[in-house]
């Protein structure tokens, strides 16, 4: 196992951002930036690669190893923590396995999603430059490679900004920063090595943890009796969303700890995604609102008319909260399926 990596300080990133700004030269059109982002998405999805990166947030920093292999139209992925815990997550074709050697546990989860939500995913959308300023310019070399730096700056305070360093030859992202409206980074992923490979040997997508004697726990479908039936089943929608967020997918699924399927709505502005979950409330009554964050993802959960409403997304916490508390039942016929900016 690799040695633990020291925690980066906040100031180091601010410095990095400042330096990058200072190194600015003439930039190219938004169209070109968009094309770079499309190339990046394509690369991430279709290439076989192995890399080492650090993932940093204000409170800490982890080193990770990632392996990505594409086979017959779908991808296998393995993420390994290098900070001493030896944890890893492997997504095989049918399941996700989370190996926790420090707990001597393997969590197994069947895949409950589908790959055909391809269209629904927030690929850099055609209208991206309506809500973000896009720029691309040549940057200084990273990992010995020529890079282009793509800046995605939000035009309002409801979303985050991004700076992505792309390998000129393959459009693979070598480094990315997510920053809030004031330019303060909330998360960074930075590769220390990245190799594209024609073939990835099986051993690289298999766990390096010896799980003999571990406890295998299948999470998923522990179901209890359903809670009180709801009086109505009207569609629920957030009435307020930042401009440009459109409904891109919706589905029902069973979430852990709940016997009744939740409705899951996904909104996107072409860059960031916001999920809204609508579930029946608990028989024991409404819980107080909760907010949480993990890196650039924020979540807010609250109770509305006997339902539990949770919003999650890669947008600032205040945005997520406003979206969550605006969710309301909408009369079925002719209801808008997406809310743009209602009062603009």
């Amino acid at each position, binding site marked *: 196992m690799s040695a633990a990596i020291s925690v980066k300080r906040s100031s180091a990133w601010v410095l990095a951002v400042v330096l990058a700004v200072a190194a600015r030269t003439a930039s190219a059109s938004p169209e070109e930036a968009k094309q770079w982002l499309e190339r990046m998405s394509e690369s991430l999805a279709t290439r076989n690669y192995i890399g080492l990166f650090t993932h940093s947030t204000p409170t800490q920093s982890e080193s990770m190893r990632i392996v990505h292999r594409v086979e017959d139209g779908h991808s296998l992925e393995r993420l390994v923590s290098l900070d001493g815990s030896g944890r890893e997550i492997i997504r095989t074709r049918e399941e996700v396995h989370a190996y926790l050697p420090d707990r001597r546990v393997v969590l197994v989860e069947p895949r409950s999603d589908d790959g055909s939500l391809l269209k629904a995913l927030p690929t850099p959308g055609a209208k991206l430059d309506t809500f973000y300023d896009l720029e691309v310019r040549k940057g200084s070399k990273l990992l010995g490679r020529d890079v282009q730096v793509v800046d995605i700056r939000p035009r309002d305070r409801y979303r985050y900004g991004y700076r992505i360093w792309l390998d000129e030859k393959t459009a693979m992202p070598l480094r990315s920063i997510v920053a809030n409206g004031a330019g303060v980074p909330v998360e960074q992923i930075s590769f220390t090595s990245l190799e594209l490979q024609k073939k990835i040997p099986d051993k690289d997508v298999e766990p390096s943890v010896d799980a003999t004697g571990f406890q295998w726990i299948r999470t998923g479908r522990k179901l209890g009796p359903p809670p009180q039936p709801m009086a109505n089943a009207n569609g629920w929608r957030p009435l307020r969303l930042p401009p440009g967020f459109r409904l891109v997918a919706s*589905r*029902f699924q069973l979430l852990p700890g709940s016997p009744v399927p939740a409705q899951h709505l996904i909104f996107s502005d072409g860059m960031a995604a916001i999920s809204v979950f609508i579930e029946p409330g608990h028989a024991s009554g409404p819980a107080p609102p909760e907010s949480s964050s993990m890196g650039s993802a924020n979540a807010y959960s609250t109770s509305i008319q006997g339902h539990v409403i949770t919003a999650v997304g890669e947008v600032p916490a205040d945005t997520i909260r406003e979206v969550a508390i605006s969710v309301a039942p909408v009369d079925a016929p002719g209801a808008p399926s997406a809310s743009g900016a209602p009062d603009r």
Partner: protein
Amino acid sequence: MKPHEPVDDETRPSAGVEQSDLELVKRAQRGERGAFDLLVLRYQHKVVKLVARLLRDPAEAEDVAQEAFVKAYRALGSFRGDSAFYTWLYRIAVNTARNSIASRQRRPLDYEADLSENEQSAVESRMRHTDTPEANVLSEEIHRTVNRAVEELPEDLRTAIILREVEGLSYEEIAQAMDCPVGTVRSRIFRAREAIDRNLKPLLD
């Protein structure tokens, strides 16, 4: 490496479905065409979706999917039941799609050429998707209609159909989860389907 198994958006067929597939295959092998037609009806969307993802040109998906089903029919005699029927069908579909791609290429891809062809086709395929073919419009309409109809279902019907279709539970498992008899589960799922179908049928006729 393990043999190919259906993956991604294909939830594993439940034991019940696998059994009934085997029964249908046996009948089809004995000459009952109706039994094979039901297998087509059951898996047509999965196969079209799978093939559409593998082809350079998704517009050909239905032609290639059709070819896969015809091949499966003609090869039915060689299906022994060692694997689930859908696993077998999946492999036929993947091979048919691959062969249809290979037949269009003049030389085998090497790594470097792969890159530039990928990039070129990426631009091409994006341009094709800016105009929405009829099939995509219909798909979206279907999706909207089905979801709206599910939202409006009474909760017991909605829970039953979601547990069956999304979570892949058997009737027995759903009966335990919902604390009701299996017969009630079967009836709820049926009534849920009928309620949704009332909105769906006019769209497709």
